[in-house]
């Protein structure tokens, strides 16, 4: 087995070598249209050790962890932990990411959880918008209108609430590989 395949197998706990390329994962994936390679192709590429291609891919950021693939896989392989492992590797290695907005959102979200212990939408979204430069992009207006509607309905409180056990939260982050 290729070293990269072993690494992903180890990190994800999924036995990739069971895959016999039946493509049932691809057939059921809601977001595969936006992958460069279909789900079974991702497994194949891991088997073949195509590390750079995968860690720099959009595919790994387009998986929404819906678990449909794994649920139906005849060999019980779940792609979501595999995608998690690929994403984590890409972040750890500081790879340039083709989906900056998605990554920026995840970072803003987790950052908020790290700071307050709970997520505070207003500051989190502000950070996300800033970091993702989303407001410079087409479609921002639509997003902003949606956000504004929520705001108007009192769905986005202004003040964050935070937890007392921040030391424990900090310890969880300290023990991880994650750098925000």
């Amino acid at each position: 087995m290729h070293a990269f395949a072993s690494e992903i197998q180890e990190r994800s706990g999924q036995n990739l070598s069971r895959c016999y390329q039946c493509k049932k994962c691809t057939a059921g994936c809601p977001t595969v249209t936006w992958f460069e390679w279909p789900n079974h192709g991702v497994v194949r590429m891991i088997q073949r050790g195509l590390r750079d291609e995968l860690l720099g891919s959009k595919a790994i950021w387009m998986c929404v962890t819906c678990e449909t693939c794994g649920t139906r896989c005849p060999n019980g392989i779940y792609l979501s932990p595999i995608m998690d492992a690929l994403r984590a590797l890409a972040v750890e290695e500081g790879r340039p990411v083709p989906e900056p907005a998605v990554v920026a959102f995840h970072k803003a979200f987790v950052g908020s959880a790290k700071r307050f212990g709970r997520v505070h939408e207003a500051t989190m979204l502000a950070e996300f918008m800033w970091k993702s430069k989303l407001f410079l992009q087409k479609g921002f207006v639509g997003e902003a209108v949606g956000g504004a509607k929520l705001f108007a309905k009192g769905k986005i409180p202004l003040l964050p609430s935070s937890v007392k056990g921040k030391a424990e939260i900090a310890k969880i982050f300290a023990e991880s590989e994650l750098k925000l």
Partner: protein
Amino acid sequence: MAHDKQRVLVIGGGIAGITAAVDLGDAGHEVVMVERLPSVGGRMLQLSETFPTLDCAQCTLTPRTVETGQHPNIKLYTYSEVVKLEGGPGAYTVTIRRKKAYVDWQKCTGCGACQEKCPTKVRQNPFERGVGVKKAIYTLSPQAVPNKPIIDADHCRYLLHGKCAVCAQVCPVGAIVYEQEETFVQEEVAAVIVATGFDLYPMDALGEYGYGTVPDVIDGFAMERLCSASGPTAGRVLRPSDGREPRDIVVIQCVGSRDPEHHKAYCSRICCMYSAKHARLYKHKLHHGRATLFYMDLRCTGKGYEEFLQQSTEEEGLVYVRGRVSKIFREGDKVVVWGTDTLSGQPVEVEADLVVLAMALVPNPEQVELARVLGIPVDDNGFFREAHYKVGSVDTGCEGIFVAGCCQGSRDIADTVAHASAAASKAQVFLSRLRRRAA
């Protein structure tokens, strides 16, 4: 009910012929068995281990060959061929040509001295498939039934040049007969079972795979010989070119099969399984070796076969690539394989040390002539044509003549054994009809 001894001719002493003969012999019928090689056992004699259990082939086969050799109802003509069949159903006269062994088998005790002392090593012996040597006087295996040697007239120094005669000198019973002539015998039989087996499509038909120029490209039987504990390398997988252990092997399936344009249109049915087996046996012997298999569809349809395949990829780490190989060539001391992975759509190039081609399975070349002698039909591919695809696969349309095993169509050992017993049943039914007709 005491049977009148009704005799059946069984042509071919492979596992199909043996199975049919023992069934018939056990049922009280006399069997005349004709085998073109010096001993019985057929293709199974060449095999190392069998899928899906990886049992040693010789271990399961030898009790059967021994039983055949000792069966009171089975009369063996090995190193012989059927040349004529006269008469009709229920009363055939068969003429059997006994080829020149240059050894008087009546006198020979099978002591093996001649083989040991013979100075001529022959690499071209078809049994060893080019990866091992036999002497110019040889038996097929140490457990051969019957355990009698023959002289390879194409390579014997005495027969070619009139010098040597070492075998004649060392034989303690004076069994070597350089002047031996072929003989013809006739036997009366009531029914015939044809079980002449198969061969592999010749590799020299495949220019793009470089046969003849690349010594480390071998066929499936050569791989069997290399893996076999009783084979020429005592079970070590060594490259024919330089005797080194290969670090990377490539197994290519469907070579000559499923290729209606250039070769054979049909599927050879057994290659998917034996290729997986070859790669696994190789990995068992060389734990750090890499095995890559090129395939089109994985056809593992028998009992336990799918599981065997899954285990091969899951536990044994075989790498399967879906796609045909377009070219194989020698580069330095490597063999380069160019293929495509149709699943990722990318080209794949492997630098291999050894390449095994799973060649198409074909009828023996002699089969067409035998069909003419027996007056039974063959199909476009040279296999015997069955009377009915579904319910008459052992019938030929000629009363009293039945077919069994791979000479009718490609099948694995288990299916061959069942098919052979089926032919034996049909022969027995035919004989009992004859008895009733006579009564």
